[in-house]
């Protein structure tokens, strides 16, 4: 047996923006074994949610993850609304959809930037993040903050998008779409990027299902599965078709996200066009009843699962959050062994890990 290297990869590591550790066993440059260690981001939010009154939990849930924070807030509201059950007004559904897709747009731009940076392609990282700032600007304009938008309340949304804002948003989105398309074309056709991603970290169709993967990661293995197919909020009215890629490799994951980035912008434009007038929130009556509910919402990283149990008080009996990364981490055990040390960073990033989500 050739001599082996055993080394930590993380929790602090420049390619990992968040603390997670991989115990890597290497032979030359080849990874022969990997063991992920999590727990660096565990705060205990589920418990804290039981101690807070239910409207307050929105702010806590939004801080489960700072990248898809708006969707966490909305999903929390969605699951609490299901306890009554409480129907939200049509305009609120559209607004939630628009903000969710806006989050997806900025999140995918962020991921594409980080992924190419992990490949050592710094100039493209800069370009993706340059256009991401434009999306953040319209998020800030419509919601009031770049990162933690805090737009959802139980029963609907907190604020409306007026016509001027809408016009500006559409303008910016069209501009971003044009630039993103140009960048995507460069990215998926670049020789060096292809050489580094094609056939790396392969996860087959069956493996992806057996390991319970979700989101773009799953769809890159050819599984056509997207929570938006459920038609929650306004997705039922929009022309939505999940984007898949057959390869199951890192390149497919890049391609799927490139496609979803454009699709998200298209969905926003469509939603802006179809958005009805009306109220933006319904008023919940009393406390959540002693009931239980589970909901699944498609987050940029995949399927976000919330389970809530009420007990008739203003506190929830139990809130369970399963984030997409939680489902995708086990697939690293399959994808990493056999790859090269150089590919570890991009393969880990290819599941779009969100550790703070995972560990709550």
């Amino acid at each position, binding site marked *: 047996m050739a001599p082996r290297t055993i080394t930590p990869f993380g929790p602090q590591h420049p390619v990992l923006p968040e603390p997670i550790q991989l115990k890597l066993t290497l032979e030359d440059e080849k990874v022969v074994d990997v063991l992920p260690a999590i727990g660096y981001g565990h705060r205990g939010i589920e418990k804290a949610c039981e101690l807070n009154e239910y409207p307050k939990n929105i702010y806590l849930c939004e801080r489960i993850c700072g990248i898809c924070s708006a969707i966490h807030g909305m999903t929390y509201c969605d699951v609490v609304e299901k306890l009554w059950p409480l129907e939200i007004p049509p305009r609120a559904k559209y607004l939630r959809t628009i903000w969710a897709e806006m989050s997806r747009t900025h999140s995918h731009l962020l991921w594409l930037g980080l992924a190419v940076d992990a490949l050592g392609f710094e100039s493209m990282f800069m370009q993706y993040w340059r256009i991401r700032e434009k999306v953040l600007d319209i998020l800030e304009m419509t919601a009031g903050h770049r990162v933690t938008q805090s737009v959802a309340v139980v029963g609907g949304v907190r604020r409306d998008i007026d016509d001027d804002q809408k016009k500006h948003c559409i303008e910016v989105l069209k501009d971003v779409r044009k630039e993103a398309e140009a960048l995507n074309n460069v990215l998926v056709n670049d020789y060096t990027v292809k050489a580094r991603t094609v056939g790396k970290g392969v996860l087959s169709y069956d493996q992806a299902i*057996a390991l319970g993967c979700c989101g773009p990661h799953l769809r890159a293995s050819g599984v056509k*599965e997207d929570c938006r197919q459920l038609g929650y909020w306004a997705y039922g009215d929009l022309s939505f078709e999940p984007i898949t890629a057959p390869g199951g490799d890192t390149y497919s994951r890049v391609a799927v996200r490139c496609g979803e980035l454009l699709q998200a912008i298209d969905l926003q434009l469509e939603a802006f066009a179809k958005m009805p007038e009306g109220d933006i929130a319904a008023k919940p009556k009393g406390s959540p009843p002693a009931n239980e509910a589970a909901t699944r919402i498609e987050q940029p990283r995949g399927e976000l699962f919330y389970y809530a149990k009420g007990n008739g008080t*203003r506190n929830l009996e139990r809130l369970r959050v399963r984030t997409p990364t939680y489902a995708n981490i086990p697939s690293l055990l399959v994808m990493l062994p056999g790859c090269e040390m150089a590919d570890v960073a991009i393969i880990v990033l290819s599941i779009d890990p969100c550790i703070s989500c995972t560990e709550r």
Partner: protein
Amino acid sequence: MIDKLKEISKDQLLAEVKKYADSKAKFVTGSCNDLGDKLEVTYYFNASPGMDMSALRFVVGKGEEVPSMTGIYLTAVLIENEMKELFGLKVKDLAIDFGGHMMLAQDSPVLPMLKSEDQKAAAQKGGK
């Protein structure tokens, strides 16, 4: 209400899970509730490809041992470890055992997700 929820006993668990595995269903996640002297465990599955979710639920006493499904679904290793260290669910034969320190550090509180006395009292009051 959880749709398509099937209540089983813990001894049936592996057989039921095997059925899901044979039909190529995807394991979604599990969750655990503290019912006072008992723990309620629910596992969710999804018939892939598609969005059809169903669930298995069993209730066990706090000291009882529960079989691990990691032999069938490796991906359940995270949730089973988590339930083990946060709720004290006694899962045996885990594929990868983090020994109670997956999420929690050495000096973290023990079994933090169990209901405190205050919580129990507050819930009782609200129930009435």
